[in-house]
């Protein structure tokens, strides 16, 4: 089954759609026009670049190049995690990157060898999109969790201090804050999982259906990926918090104030 390309004029009509939200924003004086236009421009340029890049990547299909690209993705993901939560980048960047590397590598290998059974790790066609989905999804969760963990600790400092004074070890005293963080990180994905297939078809499935794969093939991929993503997110959040906590506390068990950029 051949998949028709969207012609340039088709893309133009897609862009034209934006006129409607802009018109409504203009009439209701909702000051979001600039942001909307800018975001969509940025997205288009990024995707165009990605298109060019992926074409090259798929053409060469060089394992080294693939892994290199994965590294770039991991670095950006870790950078975004630390930057978004206004924590000290210099201090927390390395532990966060380590968390992403471990979680992503572990579950990519698991997915390729035990689930896909023979996709080939070096195959750009698998490595890049699946690695990207694992990263993209655990990225959101990790941003929420790490930032919530430290903000919760700062806001409810007395809970932590009183746990310590009640005789808790550092880990025991941090556990309630970890629970809050992990719960918030996983809640949105659980919501998505519950309505998947009925309310919306996830991107991967849409792509495979358009590419002409049978719906059954598409859903097996999707099911396998959802399990992997959920687990990868949990693992990534857990080790990101464990790794960053080694740097964020002094030997008295007190949180370094300088890990926050703003007071």
């Amino acid at each position, binding site marked *: 089954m051949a998949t028709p390309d969207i012609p340039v004029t088709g893309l133009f009509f897609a862009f034209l759609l934006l006129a409607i939200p802009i018109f409504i924003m203009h009439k209701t004086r909702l000051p979001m026009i600039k942001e909307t236009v800018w975001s969509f421009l940025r997205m288009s340029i990024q995707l165009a670049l990605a298109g060019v890049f992926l074409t090259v990547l798929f053409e060469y299909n060089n394992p080294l190049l693939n892994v290199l690209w994965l590294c770039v993705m991991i670095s950006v993901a870790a950078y975004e995690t630390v930057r978004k939560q206004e924590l000290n980048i210099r201090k927390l960047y390395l532990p966060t990157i380590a968390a992403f590397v471990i979680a992503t590598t572990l579950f990519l290998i698991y997915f390729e060898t035990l689930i896909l059974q023979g996709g080939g790790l070096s195959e750009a066609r698998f490595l890049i999109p699946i690695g990207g989905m694992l990263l993209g999804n655990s990225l959101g969760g990790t941003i929420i969790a790490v930032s919530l963990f430290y903000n919760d600790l700062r806001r*409810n400092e007395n*809970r932590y201090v*009183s746990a310590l004074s*009640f*005789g808790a070890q550092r880990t025991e005293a941090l556990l*309630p804050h970890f629970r809050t963080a992990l719960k918030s990180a996983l809640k949105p994905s659980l919501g998505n999982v519950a309505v998947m297939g009925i309310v919306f078809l996830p991107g991967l499935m849409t792509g495979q259906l358009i590419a002409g794969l049978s719906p059954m093939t598409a859903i097996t991929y999707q099911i396998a990926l959802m399990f992997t993503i959920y687990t990868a997110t949990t693992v990534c959040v857990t080790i990101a918090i464990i790794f960053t906590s080694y740097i964020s506390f002094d030997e008295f068990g*007190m949180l370094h104030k300088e890990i926050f950029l703003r007071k």
Partner: protein
Amino acid sequence: MQAGDKQCECSRGHFLRDKEAHIMEEEIIRYDNVSIVFDGKTIIEHFSLPVCKGDKVILRGPSGSGKSTLLKMAQGYARPDTGTVSYRMHEIDADTAWTIRQETAYISQDTNIGEGIVRELIAGVFAYAANRTIPYQDSLGEYLTMFSLDETILDKDFRSLSGGEKQRIVIIISLLLGRMIFFLDEITAALDGRMKSRVADYFLSHEDWTVIAISHDDVWYREGVRIIPIGGK
């Protein structure tokens, strides 16, 4: 940690009855030439205070004078900018701080200690590795009665309690842990008059308990209590 053989130098005064004198020579906490700098301003300078076993000490001073910080130093939540704080003749460092936290009790007026059902909150504290062997169930009822709380409070959400109820629950947890050295930061501020004196009575009546407290409540200011003025220049 062993008590040192050095005799405590605290000026216990004439109120000490002779029969207690022999057990009361152990030094528990000593502040030595402590300074606290806050936002570039020195708020406490050359503060020295030895506290011996059985002492009842009240730190008195205006807010912002650094009293709470002094108290936090005793469990290693704050550190002096200069000078030293020692516990049982050992300077408080990263290792001793963890021991102190398991041997002494620090209660602050901030009662935000957690969330959830009171009973589970208490059970959580006694699930810590260090507390697992402490039998607390039996004494819990006694303490509730002593501080005029009904058993039904155990099934309520901690955050729905009033300030005074929360404070009493925190005090009860500390008492259940069986500690004998207490650092108390304004723990009667949220209580009503009758309860203020009951709590103060309870802490001050145990002769072998060591208590360093911050309070503006008159109930703490009584005979036998050392009053240490802080700041207020």
